[in-house]
């Protein structure tokens, strides 16, 4: 089967790969194709800005066991950090928002986008229609979500065409995410982890999503690439009025990007508010542990610097 011929075959292929690898979609074009007309986004996101992107009462249960309950997210003042220890349900929350919750689970909750469109998260067809121009995922590990048999350029071009994006070109997207244009000619296996991650960001930006869900996008990168990716995220989301939910366990990194934060533990919101306040006075034990761990790293630096000077 020739995968390179059209996006339809390609997305079938990618879907099967991801299903096996327990991975989710970044931007599978087939998902936008099944969109119902009423939930399609029109043109260049001419949103009204008095509304906020909100997630209301997100919950998820599997075999009558509650995995997530009553999670409210509201995007005010730029990117929102979603913090919590591993296993807190951060990634699951994103998957539920994308309509990619585990099989046989029941999802509750509602998603409100800036243009006022609302989607019940248990209505998978509507949510599937939002993927792409409404919601996009930037996964933790971009490698498996790239098509292994096509060059970067073809993958970017395909998304630009599918999402009718004439403002960007594959080269301009790569420049925006801070990698050299010559990567256009490469295949995914020829990219390093940091490059693959940024190509995935370029793919997400090609969809011009209203809400970008970044699932620890930088945790596999070196600190230089991490800082660059975070800066790129901030700049490109601001430039495109894309709202951003940034999932991380690194408080210091979150502080570089986000003003507000929500802390999850075992599927519930345990603390929410301005990030600076959470760092200065963490109330919940989970937040306290995150702050203490970040302080431990910081203290070592201060210690080294002071004993030298």
């Amino acid at each position, binding site marked *: 089967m020739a995968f390179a011929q059209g996006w339809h075959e390609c997305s079938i292929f990618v879907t099967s790969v991801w299903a096996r*690898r*327990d991975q989710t979609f970044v931007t599978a074009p087939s998902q936008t194709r099944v969109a119902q007309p009423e939930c399609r986004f029109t043109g260049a996101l001419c949103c009204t800005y008095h509304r906020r992107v909100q997630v209301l009462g997100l919950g998820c249960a599997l075999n009558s066991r509650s995995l997530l309950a009553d999670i409210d997210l509201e995007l005010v003042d730029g990117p929102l950090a979603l913090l*919590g*220890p*591993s*296993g807190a349900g951060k*990634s699951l929350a994103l998957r539920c928002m994308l309509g990619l919750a585990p099989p046989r689970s029941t999802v509750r909750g509602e998603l409100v986008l800036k243009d006022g469109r609302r989607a019940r998260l248990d209505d998978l067809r509507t949510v599937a229609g939002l993927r792409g121009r409404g919601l996009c995922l930037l996964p*933790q*590990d971009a*490698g498996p979500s790239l098509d292994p048999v096509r060059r970067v350029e073809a993958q970017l071009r395909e998304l630009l065409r599918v999402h009718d994006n004439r403002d960007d070109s594959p080269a301009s997207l790569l420049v925006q995410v801070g990698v050299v244009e010559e990567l256009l000619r490469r295949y995914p296996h020829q990219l*390093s*982890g*940091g*490059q693959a991650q940024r190509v995935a960001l370029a793919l997400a930006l090609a969809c011009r999503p209203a809400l970008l869900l970044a699932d*620890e996008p930088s*945790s*596999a*990168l*070196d*600190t*230089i*690439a*991490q*800082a*660059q990716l975070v800066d790129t995220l901030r700049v490109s989301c601001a430039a495109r009025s894309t709202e951003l939910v940034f999932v991380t*366990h*690194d*408080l*210091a*990194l979150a*502080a*570089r990007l986000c003003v507000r934060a929500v802390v999850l533990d075992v599927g519930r919101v345990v603390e929410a508010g301005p990030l*600076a306040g959470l*760092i200065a006075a963490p109330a919940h034990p989970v937040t306290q*542990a*995150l702050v*203490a*761990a*970040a*302080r*431990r*790293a*910081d203290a*070592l*630096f201060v*210690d*080294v*610097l002071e*004993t*030298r000077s």
Partner: protein
Amino acid sequence: MSRETLSVRGLTVALGTRTVIRDLDLELRRGDAIAVVGPSGAGKSALLRALVGLEPGISGSLRFGGRELVGAPTEAWRPLRRRVQLCWQDPLAALHPQLPVAALIDEARLLTGLPRWHAEAPELHALLRRVALDPALARRSPGSLSGGQRQRVALARALAAEPAILLADEITSALDRPVAWALIDLLRELRGDGLGLLMVTHDLSLLPGTVDQVLVLAAGEVVERSPVRELIAAPQHPVSRALRAAVPRLP
């Protein structure tokens, strides 16, 4: 020279026509701890793969226990493969997706010729606790675990082989900070017991007190080699300075 020293002189690693590591020197004894840092694409993971013989295009000299391994037949690598364990960066690709955790760890014992551990073995449960995992996870398969849990299973598997030297490829980067510190404390403790440690990381903040020497790798070459405190306080090479400056700090 100790029997279990890993000694590398002028190691060059080629991937096809591209040279990914050029002329690298390194000596790792039991109880030593060295970090390799560098931007992505610098060749850090390729170096670790080369050290366990998974890169065919190596030249120069690589000795383990005094025996030259470059160009040697596969059997010659066996002592190294047994005593030097690599903990992979991507645990999902490194762990068999359908075996339960207990079987994965037991397999490492089998392959290294150590006494086997059944699923309820107290040693197995103690090891899982040491890597901050709930022993109840022993019956689960990697596919049902979170990324951070898988990473710790991969570390437990490497440690179950009772290595003399552990090569750890970014083992803390998928973990939340409190767990990362728990693993770093474990590595420090193991090092005190005589484990040789070569850790690849991009997080300089984990290094003070964990390793002595840091090699900064950029485009396949060692551009700086300093004690860890020196590197953090006064990085010399531009790449080291960039790494130092990029460490996120609390506001």
